[in-house]
């Protein structure tokens, strides 16, 4: 015990400066996360004390069509969101990185704007834009002779506005990160490639992409976490039933609208497991490819 005490005393300032984070983490993150696991094995409406029911919540979950819908939707948001954001952010970043681009400052400022707009408020606007009869989206479709789509009124299309909003709002942030990565790539690589007669596409594939590897991976992880905890977008743009409910929204609604706190906790546990599994897979992949 003694040497430990000595170390604590000697480095007391360092520990003191870090302690607020550790205490807050313990109280507001670790303890709640662990208690979620306990509550997930109980039946509880928030008024009477929780009653232990073993695995019942989980058995219920796998028979619950709402849970299947929520997992399917969130998975869809993850895949479409990742592809959409990565492609757009890469394209915009490359365009902004062009040498001698006029109005560069304006373009950067304007394309970052969506990121500062609250997703809830934008959700309400998207609700109107995607409205079946007065919405602008359908108006444009009709202009080109297409059929009006009942976006948020049908269970078939309700996912689309949600993922559009997700991509619209988050792309600027990742554009920024990729752009800062592009700025770090030394000009010499490209000059050498030009001498060798490499085409624009070859330079992109053989120089830009590999050198951005770590940054792109960072973006991928961040988008993944953001996608699996989508809430605001699907909450504000809710379609019929659970047609576009995200897993996280289902958790909120089960626990705080229907007061099935035990079932809500079980959904929370599933989310933790998914996030942990995804980060583990990513870690293993990177270890195998020798990136760590």
């Amino acid at each position: 015990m003694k040497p430990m005490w000595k170390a604590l005393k000697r480095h007391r300032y360092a520990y003191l400066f870090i302690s607020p984070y550790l205490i807050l983490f313990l109280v507001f993150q670790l303890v709640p996360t662990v208690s979620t696991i306990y509550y997930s094995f109980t039946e509880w409406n928030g008024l009477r004390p929780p009653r232990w029911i073993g695995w019942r919540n989980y058995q219920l979950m796998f028979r619950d069509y709402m849970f299947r819908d929520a997992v399917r939707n969130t998975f869809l948001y993850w895949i479409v969101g990742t592809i959409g954001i990565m492609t757009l952010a890469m394209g915009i970043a490359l365009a902004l990185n062009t040498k001698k681009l006029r109005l560069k400052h304006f373009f950067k400022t304007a394309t970052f704007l969506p990121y500062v707009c609250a997703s809830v408020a934008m959700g309400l606007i998207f609700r109107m834009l995607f409205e079946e009869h007065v919405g602008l989206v359908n108006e444009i479709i009709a202009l080109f002779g297409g059929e009006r789509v009942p976006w948020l009124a049908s269970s078939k299309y309700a996912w689309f506005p949600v993922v559009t909003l997700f991509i619209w709002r988050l792309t600027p942030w990742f554009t920024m990160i990729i752009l800062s990565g592009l700025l770090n790539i030394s000009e010499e690589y490209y000059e050498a490639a030009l001498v060798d007669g490499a085409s624009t596409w070859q330079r992109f594939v053989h120089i830009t992409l590999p050198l951005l590897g770590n940054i792109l991976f960072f973006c991928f992880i961040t988008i993944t976490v953001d996608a699996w905890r989508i809430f605001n977008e699907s909450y504000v743009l809710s379609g019929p039933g659970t047609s576009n409910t995200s897993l996280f929204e289902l958790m909120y609604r089960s626990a705080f609208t229907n007061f099935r706190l035990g079932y809500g906790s079980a959904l929370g546990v599933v989310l933790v497991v998914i996030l942990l599994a995804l980060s583990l897979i990513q870690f293993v992949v990177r270890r195998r490819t020798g990136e760590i």
Partner: protein
Amino acid sequence: MNYRTKASLFRFGLYAFLWIVVLFCLFPVAWMIIISFKQVGESITGFNALRIHTPTLANYKRLFELIPIWRNLYNSAFTAVVGTATTLFFCSLAGYAFAKYRFPGRNALFYFVVGTMMISTEVGAVPLFVLMRRLGLVNSLWSLIIPRMATAIGIFYLRQYMLDVPDEILDSARIDGCSEFGIYRRIVVPVAKPALASWASITIIARWNDFFWPLLFLRASEKYTLMVSVSMLPVSEGLSTPWQVVLAGTSLVIVPSIILYLFMQLYQQADLVAGAVKG
């Protein structure tokens, strides 16, 4: 096709692409602001929405009758400002300790901090709500401030920046008899000002835009932040609130963050944060 035409064609495509992106970025916001000045009777179908015959402030007036705006505005501003100030202080303190002190367990603790970034706090929402109720913090703005007074991501970012503070200055201050907290306050904070400013601007907008936690912890309309009040607008008038009024509400939420964004040069600030993610 010779080289010159190819190059100018490329330029044309480049600018066309960028202008289309800008259009998509600005359009929904402009759309919202325009409609918020339209009279309720006028048509908002498709492109008709852009034709305003008699601009009016009636929608904003209606908004003031529907929700306690001043109260909500104060709640939003208070949580954003106090939340940002506290998180800046505690994150920079911890970031400084991780960057500049050598102590047993430093690396392990730091990896731990980074690791916690993967798991979102929201999954513990049920027990957290119970905890807040027990602490008597439901319906209190402090429930939004206290849990996030120090965040992993903030510590991570500020540490990256503080690694560059030269050790020599810190050591010479120590020799001059400066206390450890005095070093933080008089040397580290001034040196790290750009990083603190950029983190502050990003945090303040994120807190202003925060929705999940206020929705969870605040349970009375007087206590709501503006974001929660506005989200409930579509259903708050019995049947349905006219779009003009709803969009007046969202304008009230979004315009301040846009002004703040342009005013704080947030673009450059975000650029700094992005730069901390090294390849």
